[in-house]
């Protein structure tokens, strides 16, 4: 049917749930939600995406989903699963790579940051968390 190399990509299969790496190729999470906006000219565009349990919880749904969203909201000091604009994206082939490193993305992967700095890096041999 369609040739194997393509000009368009699928929102469901190529973007949603796709692995996201930071500027240093370090996995930081997955695309848990996608934001779209309709422009004046009627065309719909992807404007950004969200990483984090709060957004994921909404898509899982059911009691488990609500629990996930709830806990993430309580854990996050500011807004849980904040919106990352498309401009922060360096590359999408097939994994998403961000321009900036995790240390420059204060609102992303809070749990990783906290555990890395306060717990694991303190254990001898734990290494530097670079967060």
């Amino acid at each position, binding site marked *: 049917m369609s040739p194997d190399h393509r000009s368009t990509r699928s929102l469901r*299969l190529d973007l949603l*749930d796709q692995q996201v790496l930071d500027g240093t190729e370090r996995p*930081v999470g997955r695309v848990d939600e996608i934001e779209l906006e309709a422009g004046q000219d009627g065309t719909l565009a992807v404007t950004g995406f969200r990483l984090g*349990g709060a957004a994921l919880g909404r898509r*899982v749904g059911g009691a488990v989903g609500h629990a996930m969203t709830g806990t993430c909201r309580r854990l996050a000091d500011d807004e849980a699963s904040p919106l990352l604009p498309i401009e922060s994206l360096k590359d999408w082939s097939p994994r998403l790579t961000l321009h900036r490193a995790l240390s420059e993305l204060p609102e992303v992967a809070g*749990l*990783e940051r906290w555990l*890395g700095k306060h717990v694991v*890096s303190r254990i001898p041999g734990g290494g530097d968390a670079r967060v």
Partner: protein
Amino acid sequence: MSTSKLFSFTLGTLSAIGGFIDIGDLVADALVGARFGLRLAWVTVLAVVGIMCYAEMSGRIAAVTKRPAFDLARSRLGPRYGLVALVGAFLVTGLLVMAELSGIAFSFQLLTDISYLFWVPVAGLVVALFLWALPFEILERIYGIVGLSMLVFVVAVWQLHPDWGHLWHSATTPSPTPGETWPIYAFLGITLVGAQMTPYEMFFFSSGGVEHGWGPRSFAEMRTNVIVGFPLGGLLAIAIQAVALVVFYPAGIQVEHITQTVLPVVVALGKVGLAFAAVGIFAATFGATMETLFATGYDIAQYFGWSYGKLQPPAQAARFTAVTASLLFVSVALALTTLNPIQVTIVAVVFSAMLLPLAFLPVLLVANDHVVMGQYRNGKLSNAIGVVTLGVSCLISVAAPVLLVYTRGGSG
């Protein structure tokens, strides 16, 4: 091929052997051998073929996409069913970590007569230190090579001077022994499938491939690991069944303990055999503890997209490290509740067999994804074996709970 390449090549393959026997095999194979002889050996053979097909597929996917098997579950099953697969894999593999840990403790007990419960925290500490300090290549080599001492079971078969005709007759009679019923025969067949076809091996195998930086050029090494490792694991499983048949079946002995699993080796080879068996069981269960522990950590990390594994210092995979450490701690605690690890193993193995479709389906789909795999997508053979294995695993996941209850866990 330069000698160092050849050396690492063979080491890679040898280390695969250590990882293919775990407590599930040690218990299930001995139990089945004592009761049905080799009449279920054909199940082990088919299970080896099935897991080889899916291990090769997930290894190929890992080499092409640089993403391990479980990574695909969420992208192909979606967040909700990916979560179901995750929770299922977590519970089953989590139980297995506890059983494997107890396996290490049993191997210490074999030579010291100090209760295995004393050894469980020691085993937990040893595993934690090894995992924390040593890089993977070294770990794989250690338990791989040491695991070779499991071959003592194969030697024991010869040493027992069995009536080969009887063994062959047993292996070619796919029906229950007199006085045994078909439901129990089927149930024990399912436990063999669960013991042999363990999804955590597929996840660990493919995640290891990603960490070793496999690319399409490493297909040869990957396939050698599969072609040598899994069948040898199957051979060991059948050897355990055979020695149990020769020594236990005539005496009407029912296998319930690891000490009974090694008894035929004692009969055949004496103290030397026993020492080898104890070391082999230690290596097998030690390797399996690490594999089940990391496979569980991988599953969770890959579902949420965290960094994982040992490529970076632990602090840079903090969530993965925290989850893995807490699972090890919980497993030690669970083992110390004196819950019988052999029963836990049988239950874990049966539930693992029930979850096979959730583990196999995403792999089979992605292996046929032209955009992802391009020219490396499945050929007719992989697809044929893959579909048959998936079909059988669906039947098993329906039949397993019914038979588990009907045969009262095989005691019936």
